[in-house]
């Protein structure tokens, strides 16, 4: 028997970065603002937590510039739980991303929920050892983020609304175009790449595999167990729940119910069972009434 040599460990490879996203599949990633909430999330079966100062519903309400969270707050959450801890950086703000990487967060979300720092450029994510997740409203946006080094894509939805309609629109747009590309012939793939403003190689890869090169998760508006079941059936591989848990009447049981519904999403009797007596979901918002659509941030 031989031992591997500690010096020959390769860190930050694409396989290692996408690998953590693979391990989170079928799970629920929950937004938390305190170590106590992080513990409630872990107790309920969350696969990871997103550490941030305000959930999207509050960011939306408060207005102003939303930035990366206080490192002390992120460290407090890292100390409270054993599951992966993610944190958000502003779009294009590689300075914030460098700080988050130095804190050893497990994933960075380059997120439209925060105020963008750069109106033309996203972060060059290949330059980091820590993996990134990015939002997308359509396949072209997803592939541009992947070409910049994102190792997980989440459909954006409309964060902080408790309204699933935008998440459904974005998921259907991404998975619908993937299905169409698998039917396209070789000549048509060039046009797909042009229409999507995406690298041809990634379009050709999708034509071959019928799926994104990285895991596709869903975010933005999930508030109930049935919402989780819906988006999983529409092709999401895991769900992010932001305001939906800790803006509801009774967060612990709701968190647990959404975890159960995400695992057993094909079994309506389980979704029904866990949906009973959860109290009120977070208050929802109609799209027409919004001053700011967060999903429109990012390019």
């Amino acid at each position, binding site marked *: 028997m031989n031992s591997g040599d500690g010096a020959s460990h390769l860190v930050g*490879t694409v396989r*290692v970065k996408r690998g953590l996203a693979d*391990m989170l599949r*079928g*799970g629920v990633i929950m937004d938390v603002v305190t170590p106590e909430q992080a513990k409630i999330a872990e107790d309920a079966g969350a*696969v990871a937590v997103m550490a941030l100062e305000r959930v999207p519903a509050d960011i939306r309400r408060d207005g102003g510039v939303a930035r990366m969270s206080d490192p002390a707050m992120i460290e407090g959450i890292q100390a409270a739980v*054993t599951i*992966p801890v993610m944190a958000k950086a502003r779009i294009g703000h590689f300075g914030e991303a460098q700080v988050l*990487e130095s804190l050893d967060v497990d994933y960075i979300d380059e997120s439209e929920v925060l105020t963008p720092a750069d109106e033309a450029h996203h972060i060059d994510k290949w330059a980091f050892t820590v993996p990134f997740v990015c939002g997308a409203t359509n396949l072209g946006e997803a592939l541009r983020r992947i070409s910049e080094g994102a190792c997980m894509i989440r459909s954006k939805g409309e964060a902080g609304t408790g309204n699933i309609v935008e998440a459904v629109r974005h998921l259907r747009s991404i998975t619908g175009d993937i299905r169409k590309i698998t039917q396209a012939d070789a000549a048509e793939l060039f046009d797909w790449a042009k229409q999507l403003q995406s690298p041809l190689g990634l379009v050709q890869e999708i034509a071959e595999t019928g799926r994104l090169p990285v895991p596709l998760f869903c975010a933005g508006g999930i508030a109930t167990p049935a919402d989780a079941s819906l988006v999983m059936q529409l092709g999401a591989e895991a769900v992010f729940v932001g305001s939906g848990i800790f803006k509801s009447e009774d967060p612990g049981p709701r968190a647990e119910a959404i975890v159960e519904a995400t695992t*057993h999403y094909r079994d309506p009797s389980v979704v029904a069972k866990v949906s009973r007596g959860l109290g009120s979901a977070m208050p929802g918002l109609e799209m027409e009434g919004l001053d700011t659509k967060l999903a429109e941030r990012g390019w």
Partner: protein
Amino acid sequence: MPARKSATASDSQPLIGVVALQGAAAEHVAAFRRAGARAVEVRVPADLDGVDAVALPGGESTTMSHLLRTSGLFDALSERLAGGMPAFGTCAGMILLAVDVLDGRPDQRCFGAIDISVRRNAFGRQVASFEAELTADGLDEPFKAVFIRAPWVERAGDSVEVLAEITPASNSSTDGVPSSVPVLCRSGPILVSSFHPELTADDRIHQIFLDMVGASMAR
């Protein structure tokens, strides 16, 4: 009638149940099918009917532990494991098959199917996740092993055969880092790995397990 090509597995081949509560279950199903076995996903106790062996995939062990309890699978699997059913656990799956877990949650339940103590996230957080060439007993060529927030085996009982070890990088999270730690172990019908053979196209570790399943079924 044209003869069916036997690229697909026939009924005489073992049926592997891949526990699919959370994590990288689909990759295990694909790997077992490539290696010539049949494989199904297991989410509830009834899914274990007809299954000859199980695989517990990578994922979050705290989440799986929670879902094993709520789905009723914990008791159903415990009973089958006690009856000698072969099991293969990777990363979180290794933690679940161990006797005890260090740095886990106090309420985390394990099957105790293999006499090892496992330290969770022992190699560190995600920025320390790595790939390495691993030499293992029973494999002629090195295996490209992918370690993601991986656990290691801190104690292996006398009944446990250590098939591969690795030297942790010096920046691992634990003080007093050992010079080498077991990362692939076997005991009776149980096989466990710290790393994720399901994430690479190399199915040799799955083949080792299928050989163990074959031996167990022949008895």
